[in-house]
């Protein structure tokens, strides 16, 4: 019983990181109807840049985290400018955008390899002071709590931004109908650039939290989350922010429960994807469908 409770808690922590990654992923899809396949590479670079800031530039993690998040956001601006902006007015921009985002993913990954090498690296041992608590037989660390709170902060922040602010409403307007948005005087290209900034900042943040949680970073860490992130946003309904959050949590929980039930981690991915497969068959629009983002 305690083991189960422990697994549920662990699932919640990792699920919040999946959710954060997926929210950024789905945001761009909701606005542009384009799958940004460079999102996992930005996740990786976010984590690696934070590590470099801590190790190489001797930043504290509290300074390194926001700096690396900002850096990831700027990468998003570059990504939009190079991979998406030039082809935006083309009729086949969904497909060609997919291709050019793959190209950017390869570019970002190569940059990560060149700058950080192919090995797995970790944050120095004293990066975070990690207190350990025992609550009713369940072990929780302060790092876990900080991770889940940070992820929640970002996700709630984004939801409120979309719901309440002028720029958030403009993002939703562009997501729904970019011609109408232009007639309202919305500078659509700028709003899309800002969307990439937000999306990538969140992807980068997820990369840092992921690296801290698993105590391991590598230039190909984006691979492991790429398919999961895709699964999560399909699960939650493409383009739906709340769906991505719930999908991330559900995915994290499924993963750890599978490990708990089968006693081995071999089947973890298999079961999660079986679930995804079932959802695609029985409820292809996901839990919440894709209108949810516009209604935020």
């Amino acid at each position, binding site marked *: 019983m305690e083991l189960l409770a422990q697994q549920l808690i662990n699932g919640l922590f990792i699920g919040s990181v999946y959710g954060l990654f997926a929210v950024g992923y789905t945001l761009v899809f909701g606005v542009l109807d384009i799958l940004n396949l460079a999102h996992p590479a930005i996740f990786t670079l976010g984590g690696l840049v934070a590590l470099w800031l801590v190790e190489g530039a001797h930043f504290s993690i509290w300074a390194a985290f926001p700096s690396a998040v900002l850096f990831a956001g700027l990468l998003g601006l570059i990504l939009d400018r190079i991979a998406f902006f030039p082809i935006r007015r083309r009729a086949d921009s969904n497909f060609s955008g997919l291709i050019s985002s793959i190209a950017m993913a390869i570019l970002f990954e190569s940059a990560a390899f060149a700058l950080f090498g192919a090995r797995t690296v970790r944050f120095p041992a004293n990066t975070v002071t990690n207190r350990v608590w025992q609550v009713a037989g369940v072990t929780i660390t302060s790092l876990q709590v900080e991770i889940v709170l940070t992820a929640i902060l970002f996700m709630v922040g984004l939801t409120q931004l979309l719901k309440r602010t002028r720029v958030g409403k403009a993002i939703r*307007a562009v997501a729904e*109908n970019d011609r109408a948005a232009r007639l309202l005087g919305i500078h659509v290209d700028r709003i899309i650039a800002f969307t990439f900034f937000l999306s990538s900042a969140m992807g980068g943040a997820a990369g840092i939290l992921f690296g801290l949680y698993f105590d391991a970073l590598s230039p190909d860490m984006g691979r492991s989350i790429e398919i999961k992130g895709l699964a999560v946003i399909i699960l939650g309904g493409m383009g739906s922010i709340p769906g991505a959050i719930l999908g991330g949590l559900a995915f994290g929980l499924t993963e750890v429960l599978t490990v708990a039930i089968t006693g081995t981690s071999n089947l973890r991915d298999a079961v999660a994807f079986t679930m995804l497969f079932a959802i695609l068959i029985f409820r292809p629009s996901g839990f919440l469908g894709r*209108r949810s983002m516009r209604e935020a």
Partner: protein
Amino acid sequence: MLEVVDLTVAYGPVEAVRDLSFKVRKGSVVTLIGPNGAGKTTTLNALSGLLPVRDGKILLRGRDITRMGSHRRVSEGIVQVPEGRQVLAGMTVHENLELGGYRRPQAEVGADIARMEERFPILGERRHALAGTLSGGEQQMLAIARGLMALPRLLLLDEPSLGLAPKLVQEIFRIVRELRDNGQTILLVEQNARQALAVSNYAYVMESGKVVLEGPAEDLRSDPAVIRTYLGQPTGRS
């Protein structure tokens, strides 16, 4: 207010509007009428900056805005209420109105929404409803109110009465008349030529991307060619 000189707009190799020239004077209502595919919507979209201009000039208050971005044209006062309303269906009525005032100081927008809700009570009643759940007539009111939120110098209305029941068509034209009486400059595109001419000062008849006839609205109403083509044959006359 607006002067269009030898405007050519094309979709790829197809020129939908060719060497089109017309004027809209401040405080007047000008109508573009013409059959389906004449290039009326294309013209309005070129004025709004949604379509690039291949050749010719668009002058607003004497200033060349031919290559100006669509968002800046809204600041300059060219505001379009598009064909098919295009309300943001997944956003609330209130949010649609807010976005109408997107380029204005946000402090003013709140007060103006209240005024708009007074003028169109249904929009106040349905404030928190998603725009997509409104009826066609209500959506058209919302689209017009949203356009007015931008404080247009020149309001472009593209077929505002399209697809509405006769009673609602009357209502829309009543609104247009009211706007005109308040001095709003309007460029109106309508298939309902009879009503459009009745509220207009001046009219242009377009065919295949060109002006084929123009004149004061009253003159066109009694022009035999216009009557034959656009106003239908009055019964009981040969």
